[in-house]
């Protein structure tokens, strides 16, 4: 395992890496990192919403709550985010979280809307 691997702590603020693009797919999304050219997949639309919404919430934990991830599935989602952190698809955020009142689950709800096509 590379020593550069980023440990994932869900109690910290995270965001989709700046050099990463998400492409919506029927089952979730394709994730592409323009820097290391790695390709990955998000296998559920909720996970796509979580990744998109990370930057809008003070912590990854808060994002999972806001996106309505059921308690029973939390572990699976944390593991998925940890995998994404390890492959640099998401990165630790140093900027201050947005104001609490902007914290609405809107980021999620929007992502759940059908994509324009």
């Amino acid at each position, binding site marked *: 395992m590379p020593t550069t691997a980023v440990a994932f702590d869900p109690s910290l603020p995270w965001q989709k890496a700046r050099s990463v*693009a998400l492409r919506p797919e*029927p*089952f979730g999304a394709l994730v*592409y990192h323009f820097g290391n*050219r790695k390709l990955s997949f998000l*296998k*559920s639309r909720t996970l796509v919403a979580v990744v998109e919404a990370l930057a809008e919430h003070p912590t990854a934990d808060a994002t999972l709550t806001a996106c309505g991830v059921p308690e029973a599935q939390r572990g699976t989602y944390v593991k998925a985010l940890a995998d994404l952190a390890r492959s640099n698809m998401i990165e630790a955020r140093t900027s201050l979280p947005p104001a609490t009142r902007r914290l609405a689950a809107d980021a999620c709800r929007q992502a759940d809307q059908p994509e324009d096509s």
Partner: protein
Amino acid sequence: MTAVLPERPARPIGGRLVDQFEYGLDAPICLTWELTYACNLACVHCLSSSGRRDPRELSTAEAEAVIDELQRMQVFYVNVGGGEPTVRPDFWHLLDYAIGHDVGVKFSTNGIKLDKDRAEQLARTDYVDVQISLDGATAEVNDRVRGTGSFATAVRALENLAEAGMRDVKVSVVVTRENAGQLDEFKALTDRYGAQLRITRFRPSGRGADVWDRLHPTQAQQRELYAWLLANGEQVLTGDSFFHLSALGEALPGLNLCGAGRVVCLIDPVGDVYACPFAIHENFLAGNVRDEGGFQRVWQSSELFADLRSPQTGGACTKCAHFDACRGGCMAAKFFTGLPLDGPDPECVQGYGETALAARDKELATPRSSVDHSHTGPVRGRPTLLGIPAIPAKLCDESPLAGADLG
């Protein structure tokens, strides 16, 4: 309207990615774009029967429009090939244009244009990958199929790229009966230039059909290849092209699935969209990027691709214990050897392919592509696999007195 369409199975929710991929994606993951049919070489096994430029090839403006569309569809990179793509005068412009539009380029070349200047230019360019084709780890093995001097050209290109500091260069090898025993040598050669080895499966496509019987690896070689891939797979790229070998036991890394029309397709030099780079045949032609709606319409709405985007449910292979591992193998390999698409791959490692090949109706000709741009005149350094062409070395050799000692 929908009532008259044949019913197609609905995509499952959740589950394995490989099962999702069977139903296709909104845009390809792996798009091959052949920029020209023109090529300075005349490789005996050319998958696209390239040689001469086609006058209908996409113009610079049309190619730019395709790139614009790929950017909109978020196709993050394309595999550019040909023919020899670098002989297109606007190749370097299109390369920059694609990169400038978030479409990364990985291009395959025989190295003919990669002099020191171009090597330095590439080393300075972010988001480009170079893949040098080589089908023998020695000039002797390589040049028999790719042409005299082609090994030297490829090695010179590798030297230039290494000298310029270009990173992650790939050496792309089609595994044949003649080079299957050279895998370690290929690895050593690529290591020497700090490059990465990429090996892919030889298919009976294009001129490959003419030499498939003599060049496709034997069953014993396939087993050795499988063992080699299990031992070295992590450091070697394969384009996931050897998934038919997974039926030997442990699944090979990557996507073990035929991606044709599902996650993969080909845009050929004249803009025709085929299900896969190895399937240049009217049966697998989905449309043309010049059609109304462009590439996106072809990818998302063509009847052919819709047909390909469902799991195989019938045919002999679905009853096989190894079906989940190999998924019936390569569509193009079956098609161009005259086998049914829902039956075994001609190189089925369980031996069903050989049985199927033997049971073929000898009266029926195997399907051939009508798309052929092979050189018709003499080519410098023509490959010798099929024998030395009957072109006299010197005109006077034809004279009845040539060589006669008249002294």
